């Protein structure tokens, strides 16, 4: 049985986070890139900031405060987008 991949977000001090309205502006200090993110991306970044998590643990961490519409598949898609944007690292 293979171990599921874990995901890691930058430490909190690597990001400037400014909620604007429905969207959140995020400045990624290491790359100097600005991102405009919709829910649940900012929540995923916050949940992954403390320690790397696999998708199941991430879903559990998010579930306490937040329900991702569409369940596990939607969460995997959002994670994939954040990896592509360079905001989340797949370990």
């Amino acid at each position, binding site marked *: 049985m293979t171990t599921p991949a874990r995901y890691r977000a930058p430490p909190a001090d690597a990001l*400037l986070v*400014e909620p*604007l*309205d*429905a*969207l959140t*502006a995020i*400045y990624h*200090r290491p790359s*100097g890139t*600005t991102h*405009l993110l919709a829910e649940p991306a900012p929540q995923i970044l916050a949940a992954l900031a403390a320690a790397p998590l696999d998708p199941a643990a991430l879903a559990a961490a998010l579930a306490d405060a937040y329900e991702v519409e569409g369940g596990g598949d939607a969460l995997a898609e959002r994670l994939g987008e954040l990896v592509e944007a360079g905001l989340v690292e797949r370990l």
Partner: protein
Amino acid sequence: MRHATAIRVGPVTFRVGSAWPAPVAALADLYRDYPPPGDVPDFTVRLEPPRPWRRVFRPQVAIAGDFTLPEAVPLPLAHGLLAAEMGMNLQMALGHRRHLLLHASSVERDGAALLMTGESGAGKSTLSALLAARGWRFMGDEFALVAPDTGLVHPFPRPVSLKNESVAAVAWAGARFGPVLAGTPKGTIRHLVPDAAALVAMDRPVPPRLLVFPRFGHAAAVRPVAPAEAFVRLTEASTNYVALGEAGFRALTGLVQAVPAVAVDYPDGAGGIAAVEALWTAR
């Protein structure tokens, strides 16, 4: 350079040199009422012939300086004043780092700034001049300078660049104009010197209070713009947002969080003035 002058607009001093006396003389005359320049120029603009013989034979002006666009087309010497203004804009757009630079016009009333930004032809320049004619303090028709540390808007009151039909539409008692520049790549252009109140106060920044995205030539309509949309549109309207990095992010998110934004469609100058002044009073 054989001929040169120094000009200060708000916090920025330019040294403009030229191979010919005429553009420098026209520039010095246009800016004669401005407060004195700083000792050290921030930017240098050079107006020189693209080839040596173009100084005398069908003379042409190429824009050079600290920053240069290699593909820029030279202008005839008769449009030397326009070349100087374009050269000053170019240095600001590519080189200025002290402020977040927004491609926006700005005017002041009650100690606060109204910012207007939009694509070329949206009317931000004409609206700023029309408001100035109604007693608003003119702060600039091209660039608004936002200080990253304070969020204040610093004036950059260059002469208003009026184009085509706007040339006849804007003036006030005692208004002073530059020469008519006909047949330029942007049509007929005439510069309007800001009034004395604008020049005296050009070192006085004010906090922003309202952000307007005007659109000329459409049926009157007013629509609030959410902060995230305003943020995206202003990153596109800024020439140095990326270069400023973190300071730019802080300045721009701070601006859209602090100041309401409104999209204003207007059919003509009178309609635009009425809409903007109503919004200002309602704030």
